[in-house]
């Protein structure tokens, strides 16, 4: 048999050869398919295996007041995050969470948090958590593997609720906002401004997150292996921090004013009339924006939004009221400028005026007797202005209104501003309220009827008076002034009005604001809450039906460096508390004077925080330094160009 192979054996071996070749071809084709045809796909999968993008969070910009005091900064805090991509039972996790951390959350709440998150698999369950939780979550990873702790930079407002409406608050980015702002970082901790400057300056404040591609092994641990140089690993895009934003606010003035309000509600705005720089923005009651930068509990949110005193309402631009007597200087101005009135024009006030079959009352039941323009303004005589309004007519007022910003938004850099109404025949027709009757002029002339303003609009009128016709856009962000409109008011008219407004404070209804050595021009006013008949003292009514008190003006008369408006809700007549509030503010601005206990209420910062390296270590420190009476306040600098304020500082 040696060598002599029977044919069947040869066949068998040839058959095996054939099988071998077939198998080789099958395997080679399979390899070709996996490695060459699908190779790029699998390379991507392998890169995804070993790289992990890590978000490098960009800090949001700080907010500083005009003197450099920190109004808002970032604070390192820790948050509890649910990661559904980790796999595991949500129900089980919630039970364990309740047992181990004592945190009770329903499945619905968690699902809602997931829907709100810009990263569909991540939900922020709790922010600013106690340090004890961090250890507990780490120690119980077997049960809490869906949970992890993440460090974030949380917004912190050292002054607490002070200036809350100007600063605003932030909240976590929602999926809709992510789309709008074109943010696609895989980061659930991006904060966006939801109100105030935080919102209007959001683009400046918000940084851009960076990214780092780390190399990880199969256990998800970061490994640095110098022997393995991999594409994609080590890429690092630095975060771009948000810009520090300087505000025109003076937090100390803000403090003084908010304290001056005591328990009262209302608003106050102080502004440099030549630049539009807002020095103080009071809206009371206020709220603590710190609440929002930790996840605000639903109950707290409800409490704030359902509070009948509307703490979230930004009163200076969202509160609409009749301006009352504070409107009279504007009427006088129109009369004087259009030649309808002269300073010597007199009317007789018997306490009322019968016009077109209706009786229009003066607030003084027994009348003011014969009244000229100065006295009409000083005593705020309604009858005088009924006559003036009748003579001037709505058309003339409408023509001037636009130079003073009536009926239009001021354009202040805060969100959700609304405008009061300046009624005109056209406006009335559009509202299907019938034709304009001559009788309609009368209530408008005393700041009532269809006429309404926001406190900021009223401030705009007085600021424009102060500058002699130039109206600047109010602003909270530092920057060049923006002239909104300009009209030449004759020096004579300006002098008459200033004289009248000075008299109001010297000897009229606003004596509560008299400051020795400073000529303050101002006008009191009353915004009726319920239609009270003339002569009735609204202070005898229940608090919530009392009239709102206005006090608006500017100072010093010769060279105005500040214009202001104060409105105390249900404050009765404007001559009292509102004037006192304004006086406190003016004394600080013009004389550097501080009220008795300036420290009260400024230390609203939550305790126990390590100071941030990038911010002044203690928010109180610069404040106390600035309380030094030797140091003159710096804000009387009119920024308006060369000749506009030629007389220099008072």
């Amino acid at each position, binding site marked *: 048999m040696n060598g002599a192979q029977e044919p069947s054996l040869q066949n068998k071996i040839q058959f095996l050869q054939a099988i*071998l070749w077939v198998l080789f071809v099958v395997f080679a084709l399979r*390899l070709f398919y996996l490695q060459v045809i699908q190779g790029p796909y699998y390379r991507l*999968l392998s890169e995804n*295996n070993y790289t992990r993008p890590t978000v490098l969070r960009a800090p949001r910009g700080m907010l500083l007041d005009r003197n450099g005091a920190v109004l808002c900064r970032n604070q390192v805090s820790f948050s509890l995050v649910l990661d559904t991509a980790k796999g595991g039972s949500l129900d089980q996790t919630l039970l364990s969470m309740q047992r181990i951390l004592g945190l009770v959350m329903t499945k619905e709440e968690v699902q809602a948090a997931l829907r709100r998150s810009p990263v569909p698999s991540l939900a922020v369950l709790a922010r600013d958590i106690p340090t004890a939780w961090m250890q507990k979550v780490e120690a119980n990873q077997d049960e809490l593997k869906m949970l992890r702790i993440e460090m974030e930079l949380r917004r912190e407002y050292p002054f607490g609720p002070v200036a809350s409406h100007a600063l605003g608050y932030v909240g976590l980015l929602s999926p809709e906002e992510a789309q709008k702002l074109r943010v696609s970082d895989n980061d659930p901790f991006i904060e966006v401004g939801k109100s105030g400057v935080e919102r209007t300056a959001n683009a400046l404040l918000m940084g851009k997150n960076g990214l780092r591609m780390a190399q990880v*092994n199969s256990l998800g641990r970061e490994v640095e292996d110098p022997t393995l*140089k991999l594409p994609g690993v080590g890429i690092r895009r630095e975060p771009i921090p948000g810009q520090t934003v300087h505000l025109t606010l003076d937090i100390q003035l803000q403090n003084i004013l908010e304290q001056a309000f005591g328990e009262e509600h209302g608003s106050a705005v102080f502004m440099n009339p030549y630049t539009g720089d807002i020095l103080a923005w009071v809206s009371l009651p206020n709220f603590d924006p710190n609440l929002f930068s930790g996840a605000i509990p639903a109950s707290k949110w409800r409490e704030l939004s359902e509070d009948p005193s509307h703490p979230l309402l930004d009163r200076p631009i969202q509160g609409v009221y009749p301006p009352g007597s504070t409107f009279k200087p504007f009427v006088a101005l129109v009369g004087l400028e259009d030649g309808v009135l002269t300073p010597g024009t007199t009317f007789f006030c018997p306490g009322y005026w019968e016009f077109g079959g209706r009786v229009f009352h003066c607030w003084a039941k027994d009348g003011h007797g014969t009244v000229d323009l100065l006295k009409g303004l000083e005593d705020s005589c309604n009858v005088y202005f009924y006559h003036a309004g009748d003579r001037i007519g709505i058309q003339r007022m409408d023509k001037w209104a636009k130079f003073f910003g009536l009926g239009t938004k001021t354009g202040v850099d805060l969100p959700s501003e609304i405008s009061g109404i300046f009624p005109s025949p056209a406006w009335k027709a559009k509202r299907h309220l019938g034709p304009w009757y001559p009788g309609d002029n009368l209530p408008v002339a005393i700041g009532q009827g269809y006429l309404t303003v926001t406190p900021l609009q009223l401030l705009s009128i007085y600021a424009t008076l102060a500058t002699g016709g130039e109206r600047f856009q109010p602003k909270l962000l530092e920057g060049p002034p923006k002239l909104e409109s300009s009209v030449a008011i004759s020096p004579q008219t300006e002098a008459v009005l200033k004289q009248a407004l000075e008299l109001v404070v010297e000897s009229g209804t606003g004596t509560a604001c008299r400051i020795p050595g400073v000529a303050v021009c101002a006008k009191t006013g009353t915004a009726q809450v319920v239609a009270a008949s003339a002569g009735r003292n609204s202070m005898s009514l229940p608090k919530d039906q009392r009239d709102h008190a206005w006090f608006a003006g500017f100072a010093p008369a010769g060279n105005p460096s500040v214009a202001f408006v104060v409105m105390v809700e249900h404050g009765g007549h404007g001559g009292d508390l509102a004037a006192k509030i304004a006086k406190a503010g003016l004394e600080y601005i013009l004389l550097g004077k501080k009220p008795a206990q300036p420290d009260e209420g400024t230390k609203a910062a939550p305790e126990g925080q390590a100071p941030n390296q990038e911010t002044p270590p203690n928010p109180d420190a610069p404040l106390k330094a600035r309380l030094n009476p030797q140091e003159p306040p710096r804000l009387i600098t009119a920024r308006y160009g060369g000749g506009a304020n030629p007389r220099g500082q008072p």
Partner: protein
Amino acid sequence: MKKTLRETLSYGDFVTAALYLALLIFGALMVRSATFGTRFAYLGNRQMFWAVLAFGAFSLAFLIPYEIWVEYSYLLYGLCVAVLLSMPVLGHYVGGHKSWLYIGPIGFEPSEFAKVAAALAGAAFIKELVGRAMGWREIGILSAIIGLPMLLTLLQPDFGTATTFIPLVAVALYLSFLPLTQIVKWCALGILTLMLLLALGWFTFLKPYQKDRIITFIHPTANTRGAGYQVNQARIAVGSGELLGKGLYSGTQNRLNFLPAPHTDFIFGVVAEETGFLGSLALLGLYLSLLLRFLSTASAARDSEGRFIVLCAFAVILYHVLINIGMVIGLVPTAGIPLPFLSYGGSFLVSMSLFVGLAANVRSRRYAQ
């Protein structure tokens, strides 16, 4: 003896030896890469030692005329069976079965050597037939010779290694009196029966993890975090190698531990990832060349026992390569079958080397009297 050695060397099968050496060196290299930078790095050096030892075993199998091997085969076979019988007492548990025997610090797997011994014992039995064609009775006896150590291995219970005896039985069948057409018919029938058994087993005796493996084979991404993880990661390793590979020691699936058991069962994943399609194809080519060489030796062999030995080497190595690479590239279900000359392991390397050495031996002595 001197004369036989000269004879062997003058017609020496140095092609087989060269192919073997190439595989041996490639394997030692790949084990180094597969363990580089891990806590198993020392296995890279140890495999070098095993390679040297295996080369010694190859040389012995190559140089000692196979007639002598066949002559003493019953002794070797008896020794192996005796050791396997004593395994329940002497064996050490490794990976869930008692398959390791320790003599001092050196451990080895007797079942690996039993394979070689069974092949030699089978050859000895065929020699006794002196050319008579094998009938059913002879096939039965051959199967019993091979089946005994297989059964003992199965009892350890090392299912994977036990299946590697099957190729030997197949060889016995293949060399029987049956014509090729009959064999093909029987094979088809066998596969059909196997599938039926599988279907039956699915509902009766298959354990959940075994079912998992089959599901994973059919649909690997069904459960990427469970049973499918290994297969999925192995496939990523293979595919991401692309045409040229990521370079030795630079496979990310390997180095960052995504690839399971990279130095043993999934070492082909390392080859494919680091040397790419071309490297993998080259390795397949080496195996193909070696196996084709075996087939050519089988037809050139001067006697049926030599032919049986060569075909046993062919069948065993083909079986391992087929199942192992097939598993890594997703053509067969996951099974714990190592890859000859590449997977880490001393006993396995030595037994595979013995097979190759014997095959080369048969070819070298094809003209000897």
